[in-house]
């Protein structure tokens, strides 16, 4: 099916031009990076932009840099860029592991992390990594830049803290100070291109500190604060995990839809917690399953 709607197309070369266009079109312009989501939504007439601003001409947005313990991910960095980056694989393996679960190679070659978080769907695979690393999202608007902590980013399904005339310039991940290991588990219906039925990211830090975040089991991806509070400070044992599993149904509020029933989601989320936390703790010292190995 062709696109029926008409729109203007711009490909600016400077960030200032994006800001100008955004203010000229007052909420009727959409930014195009990979387009894996936007073009489909325009086709479906869920979006009717008057202007599409293709940002791929802006070199500085392509940057993927690690400096002083911080990973700067420009708005044009694709999931393939993240997967191919040795720095991401070595320093932020949990982000690497979750990037590998996004759709398929052909989509990851275009889809960007920034686009993923701007779409803000409940099942976004990058959500848990963003929340447990407590990333910062740098947005630009007419009045300059502001920093939005990932924890304040997701407001509802497809609703984010980004204002109409702003755009995401980069996402910054800080390396935790303590030694750590992580895991991201995605439950899908099959091993191909599918959205998560449940997604769970876990970061275990030395000294029995744990961070957990779910996606696809609530209106937004969110940290599992009760489970974190229960686990923190305690060395991991089988009985501790059993107790933590009981809290899962209090943390998540899945729905029944075409992908799974809510009961199934809650049930498997508990198993995912068990396998994910064991893997994360083992990985602190480089043991356990290799990153990227499927745990479910």
């Amino acid at each position, binding site marked *: 099916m062709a696109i029926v709607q008409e*729109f*203007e197309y711009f490909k600016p070369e400077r960030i200032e031009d994006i800001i100008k266009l955004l203010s000229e079109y007052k909420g009727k312009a959409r930014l195009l990076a990979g*387009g*894996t989501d936007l073009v489909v939504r325009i086709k479906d007439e869920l979006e009717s932009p008057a202007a*599409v601003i293709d940002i791929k001409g802006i070199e500085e947005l392509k940057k993927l840099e690690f400096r002083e313990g911080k990973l700067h991910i420009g708005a044009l960095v694709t999931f393939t860029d993240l997967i191919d980056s040795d720095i991401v694989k070595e320093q932020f393996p949990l982000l690497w592991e979750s990037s590998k679960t996004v759709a398929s*190679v*052909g*989509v990851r*070659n275009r889809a960007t992390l920034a686009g993923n978080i701007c779409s803000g769907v409940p099942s976004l695979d990058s959500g848990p990594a963003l929340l447990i690393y407590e990333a910062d999202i740098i947005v630009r608007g007419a009045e300059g830049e502001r920093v939005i902590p990932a924890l304040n980013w997701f407001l509802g399904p497809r609703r984010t803290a980004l204002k109409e005339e702003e755009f995401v310039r980069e996402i910054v991940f800080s390396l935790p100070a303590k030694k750590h290991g992580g895991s991201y588990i995605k439950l899908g219906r099959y091993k191909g*291109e599918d959205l998560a039925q449940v997604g769970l990211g876990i970061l275990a830090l030395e000294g029995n500190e744990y961070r957990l975040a779910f996606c696809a089991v609530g209106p937004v991806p969110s940290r599992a604060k009760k489970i974190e509070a229960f686990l923190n400070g305690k060395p991991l044992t089988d009985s501790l995990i059993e107790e933590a599993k009981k809290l899962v149904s209090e943390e998540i509020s899945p729905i029944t839809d075409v992908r799974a029933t809510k009961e199934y989601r809650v049930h498997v989320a508990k198993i995912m917690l068990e396998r994910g936390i064991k893997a994360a703790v083992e990985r602190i010292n480089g043991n356990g399953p290799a990153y990227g190995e499927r745990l479910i």
Partner: protein
Amino acid sequence: MKKISFILNGEKRSTYVEPNNLLVDVLREKLGMHSIKYACGRGDCGACTVLLNGKGVRSCIILAIEADGQEILTVEGLSKDKLTSLQESFIDHGSFQCGFCAPGMIMSATELLEKNPNPTEEEVKEGLSGNLCRCTGYTPIIKAVLDVEKRDVDKK
């Protein structure tokens, strides 16, 4: 209408497009690249896969205007005088039932082998996981990709 120019299968090409034209339509209908198949139209099935600057992409969810100044490779551009080892391997393994998914599969496998000339079965499955075969004839396709390395060694 805007004029766009790009390299298609090694040759310079230009055409006029509207901003809302999709790459798949322009390549198929204006430029005659009928190997590219249009199916889901949402980037899910991989039948319209082409290589854009060497990377497999879904031409059904890319605006044609985005291809301005880029390099595109389709199945038509893979073989000038003779088939590639991968294409030969597809034939020898009978990796076609209806054949609809084959061009997309071949382009995704071409990208995979370029990056990783000796993939494991798992890596082949991952590389092709975004290409759906509605006949569910995956086994001969995977075998064909795995066999390419051996075939190239045998030839030497």
